[in-house]
């Protein structure tokens, strides 16, 4: 099949969840199909400033078409219209304007879909919340498969989405909780699959000596991903400092690009963006992986942690991560500071239980998230969409 994967930004050095998901799925699809990535020149998810050169390039087996962003995101205007839309006080026109302001505003990308959409057998769109999906799916609806990456945030309740969600020819969900969130607005006969994301088994023990080079010592708790208030990082840092202040010798290691201030304190170590080797070494040695985000459509880092036999501690207010953790029996969760401290105490004080929770997480990944299992579900859906 000739497939297109349409995504707001694309690159191996981009840390976002949906972007990584798109990249690894596209790479696996390319083993059996002709895959083109249709994306923008943006790298920065806040400003959408053009970074990559426009035009056609080749990354491995993937043909990449990049289109320029016409204007960077005006944050003030975006915040103002977000207040209106999320408070349910916006007109239909203002709701549509929200998707323009959210961007990345790439009219040439839409022109390409308009002119060449029919050249592709299926077009997979990642993330409903961005310009390329909101304005792009209607242009190629009969061939479009939407990967909504929906979260239980205020945007999902916006009326303007009723029209969008009625259009795609198929849906790919990441978790049962995400499917639950979207399915009520999708025509009942629309084919769909819950695929999550695939992982390869850990091939060999990582080189943990690199951690000593970075000055990281046992024991430590790990946070992996963007350091951002929207990911619950302000809660995590504030309360981890409080926890460490109670006298326990433990460090929080945070690996990922930061868009907020990280306290300068011996108990918190921020490494910034790390390469795969360091990431693997961190996962091999972490006592617990913490994921405080209140909104997720699938937490890839939970799967990565379990792949290394590391248990997790997640925010109970996020249905998705709590659901993943309960299905895997792979860790604990918290609703508030007292539960955060108690659950962390429990995991750090009970070595045997901690290891068993990690092992149960690994068994869950083996059952549900190995590549052959994930790709079989996706291939079946792509065939089903075509046979309608």
């Amino acid at each position, binding site marked *: 099949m000739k497939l297109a994967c349409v995504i707001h930004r694309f690159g191996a050095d981009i840390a976002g969840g949906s972007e990584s998901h798109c990249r690894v799925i596209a790479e696996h699809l390319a083993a059996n199909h002709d895959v083109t990535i249709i994306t923008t020149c943006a790298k920065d998810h806040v400003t959408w400033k053009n970074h990559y050169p426009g035009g056609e390039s080749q990354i491995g087996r993937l043909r990449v078409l990049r289109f320029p962003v016409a204007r960077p995101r005006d944050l003030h205007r975006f915040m103002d219209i977000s207040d209106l839309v999320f408070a349910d*006080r916006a007109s239909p026109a203002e709701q549509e304007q929200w998707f323009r302001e959210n961007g990345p505003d790439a009219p040439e990308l839409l022109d390409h879909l308009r002119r060449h959409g029919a050249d592709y057998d299926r077009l997979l769109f990642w993330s409903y919340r961005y310009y390329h999906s909101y304005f792009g799916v209607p242009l190629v609806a009969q061939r479009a498969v939407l990967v909504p990456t929906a979260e239980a945030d205020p945007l999902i309740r916006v009326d303007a989405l009723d029209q969008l969600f009625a259009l795609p020819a198929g849906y790919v969900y990441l978790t049962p909780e995400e499917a639950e969130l979207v399915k009520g607005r999708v025509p009942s006969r629309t084919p769909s699959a819950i695929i999550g994301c695939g992982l390869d088994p850990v091939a060999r023990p990582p080189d943990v000596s690199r951690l000593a080079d970075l000055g990281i010592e046992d024991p430590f708790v790990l946070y992996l991903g963007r350091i951002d208030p929207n990911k619950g990082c302000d809660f995590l840092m504030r309360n981890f400092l409080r926890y460490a202040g109670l006298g326990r010798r433990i460090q929080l290691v945070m690996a990922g690009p930061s868009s907020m201030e990280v306290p300068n304190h011996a108990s918190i170590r921020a490494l910034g963006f790390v390469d795969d080797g360091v990431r693997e070494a961190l996962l091999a040695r972490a006592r617990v992986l913490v994921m405080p985000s209140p909104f997720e459509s699938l937490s890839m880092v939970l799967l990565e942690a379990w792949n290394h036999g590391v248990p997790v501690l997640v925010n*109970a207010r996020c249905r998705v991560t709590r659901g993943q953790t*309960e299905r895997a029996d792979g860790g*604990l969760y918290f609703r508030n500071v*007292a539960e955060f401290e*108690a659950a962390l105490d*429990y995991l750090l004080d009970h070595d045997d239980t901690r290891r*068993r*929770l990690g092992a149960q997480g690994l068994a869950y990944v083996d059952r549900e998230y190995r590549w052959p299992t994930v790709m079989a579900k996706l291939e079946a859906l792509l065939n089903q969409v075509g046979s309608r």
Partner: protein
Amino acid sequence: MTTIGTRALMDDIERDVRNRLRRHILKRGGAAEYEDEALFERVRAVLGRAVDERNADALLLPELLDSDVEWELQTHLRLTTHRPVLGRVILLVKRRLLLPMTRWLFEYSQENFRRQQRINAVLFACIEDLAIENARLRRESKR
């Protein structure tokens, strides 16, 4: 080997946290009714449901208050004018000069308004849950 259930572990941890919270509140002179562990748990469950499970955007009380939302915190700054000709100039000055200069103050206030709005929503949710509980008990007592 038998599975260690996340839910079972969390039940123990949550029970322990609740007991500590109850003792802490009593020690600080909280409601004497909380000596009764079961009663404390019932109160906590009702309030906890309001905080964790109610959708703050779909509550009954705000709908009953007023349809023109005059009671609601207005976190969105909308610059408008009633002057047909001079208005455009005034708006331009406000947008391009005054707003950027006072943006820090606007954003500081806006963040605090957002927090207040969140508290209001939680309180509305608590009242609604208590009203539901009350209605249910009345219906049961009449049977």
